[in-house]
C-alpha cells in the first residue's frame, strides 16, 4: 500500500484530536503546553504533505512559520509558568481560579 496524501491528513487529524483531548483533560500546565505543541505539529505534518502533493512550497513555508511561532509560544508560556510556580509552588490548573462569574 502506498502512503498517500490522505494518510498524512488522517494522521494529522488524529494527532490534532489527541492534542485537543490533551488540552481538555490535562490539569498540569506543562502537560497542557505539550498538548498545544501536538496541535501545532499535527498541522505541520498536514502542511508538509499538502505542500508536497501540490508541489508548492507555500505549505512548507507555513509549516516553518508555525514551528517558529510554536517555539516563541513555548518561550512565553514557560516564562509565565515559571513565575506562577515561583509564586504558588504549583502548576495545577484547578488552583488557578480566583477570578470567575
Amino acid at each position: 500500500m502506498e502512503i498517500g496524501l490522505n494518510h498524512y491528513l488522517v494522521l494529522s487529524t488524529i494527532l490534532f484530536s489527541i492534542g485537543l483531548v490533551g488540552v481538555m483533560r490535562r490539569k498540569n500546565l506543562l502537560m497542557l503546553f505539550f498538548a498545544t505543541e501536538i496541535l501545532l505539529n499535527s498541522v505541520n505534518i498536514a502542511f508538509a504533505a499538502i505542500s508536497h502533493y501540490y508541489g508548492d512550497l507555500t505549505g512548507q513555508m507555513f509549516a516553518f512559520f508555525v514551528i517558529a511561532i510554536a517555539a516563541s509560544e513555548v518561550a512565553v508560556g514557560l516564562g509565565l509558568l515559571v513565575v506562577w510556580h515561583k509564586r504558588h509552588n504549583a502548576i495545577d490548573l484547578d488552583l488557578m481560579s480566583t477570578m470567575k462569574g
Partner: protein
Amino acid sequence: MLEPVNVSLESLNLMTLAPMLIPIIGALLILVIDIFKSGLDKSLFVMISILFLLIDLGAIVETAGIFTENGTMMGVFDVMLIDGLAILAQLIIVVASLLFIPLALTHKHFHEFAYPEFFALFLFMLGGFQFMVATDNLILIFVGLETASLALYTLIAMHNRDKSFEAAIKYFTMGALSAGFFSFGSMVFYALTGSIEINQIAAVLGANGFADMGFVLVGVVFVLAALGFKLSLVPFHTWAPDVYEGSSASLAGFMSIVPKIAVFIVAMRMFEFLIHSGVVWLEVILYIVVVVTMTMANMWALVQTDVKRMLAYSSITHAGFVMAAILIGTTQSNSALFLYWILFSFINLGAFSMLWISRQKHLPYHQYTDHSFEKFAGMIQTSPVAATIMGVFMLSLAGIPPFALFWGKIYLISSAVTGGYTVLAFIMALNSAVGAYYYLKLVVYMFMKEPVINKDGHVFVANATTPLKTIIGFAAVGTIFAFLAVNPVLEFITALVYKSGY
C-alpha cells in the same frame, strides 16, 4: 539551475510596509536605549512611543492618500495588501494606541511601566496588528496575530499581580489553542485550494462552485473558532472577563479595542466572500453566534458586581453587535462597523481610563475587587466632575443619544434594516435596552446612593495626572460632541470601504 532572483525594488512597493516597520523600529530603539543606559524614567519611553506612533500615523495617512488615488495596492511579493479596510483599521489601531500609551503616566507607580520592555513590546504588538490587517495572506495574518498576542500576554503579565499572571496564563493557553485552530483552518483551505491567499482561495472556491462544501465548512469552523476567540464571541469568550479583570484597567480598555478591530478586518476578508457566495450555513451560524453573543453577554453583565468585569462583558456584547455588520455584509454595514468601532473606542477607552485613575494600590477592607460598584457609590457628592464624565460614558455605551455610540448604533441597525435583517435589527435594539440596565447600575451607584466610605473624593482620582486627565477629557469631548464629527467621518469611511470593494 535556478534563475537568480531578480526583483526590482519598485515592484516591492515598500511603501506598503512602512507603517508596520515604524513601530518595530521604535521598539528596537527603545531596547537599544535601555542597553546603553538603564533606569530611565518611563516618561521618556512614553514620549518615544508617542513620537513613533505619530510617525506611523503619518505613514498611514500617506498610504491613505495613495490609496484614494490609485486604489488597492499590493506590495512585497503581493503579500501586503493596502486597501481601505487596512487603512481604516490601522488608523483606529494607531489612534487608540496614542490614547492608550499616555495612560502609563500615572500618579502611582506600577510595576510594568518601570521596564522599557513594556513599551517595546507594545510597539511590537502594534506592528503585529498592522501586519494582520494589511494582508490577505494567511501566513502573514497568522504571524502578525501571534506576534501581537504573545506580546500582549507578556504585557498583561507585567502588571505583576497574582490575578495578572492568572489572566495571562489563561489568555495564553487559550490563545495557543486558538492558534492551533487557525493553523488547522488554514491548512484545510490550503488543502482545498492550494493557496493561502484569501482572494485566491475565494477565486478557486468560486471556480469549482464550492464542490467540497463539507470541507470548506470544516475550514470555516476552525477559522471561525480562532477568530471568535479573539473577538470573544460566545462560546469562545470565556477568557475575556478574567483577562480584563486581571490586567490593568488601561490595558483592558486597549484590549477591548485594538486586537478586535484587527481581527474584525480578518473576519471581514475571510467571511464576506463566503457569505456573498451563498454559503447559507455560515450566514445561519454567524446569525446564531451574533445573537447569542449579544444576548448572553448582556445577561452576564447584568449580574456582575465589579465594574471592570461588567465592562468586559459589555465589550463582548459590543463585539457581537459589530459582528452583525459582517453578517449583513453590505457597504453600509461595513462602514457602520468602522464608524461604530471608532466611536466605541473613544468611549470605552474613556470608561476604562476612568477606572484606571481610580485604581488604588491596595484594596481597602470592604472591597474585594479593584472596581466594585460600591466603590463608586455617591461619587457625585465627592467628585462631581468625574462622576458626570463617567456617567456620560455609561449613557453613551447604553446608546443614549446624542452621545457618540448612538450614531454608530443607528447606522448599524439601519444597515440591518436595509440589508433585510429585520428580526436582527429588533434583536439588536432590544439588546441595547437590556444593556442599558447594567450601565445604569453604575449611574445609579454614582448618582443616587450615599457614599459608603470616607467622604474623600480623592479615591476616584487617586491615580490622575495631567496627561491622564487630558486623555479622559479628550474622550469625553469626543463622546459628547460626536454628532459634529459623525458626518465627515462617515463620509470618509464610506468612501474608503466602497473603494475597497466591500
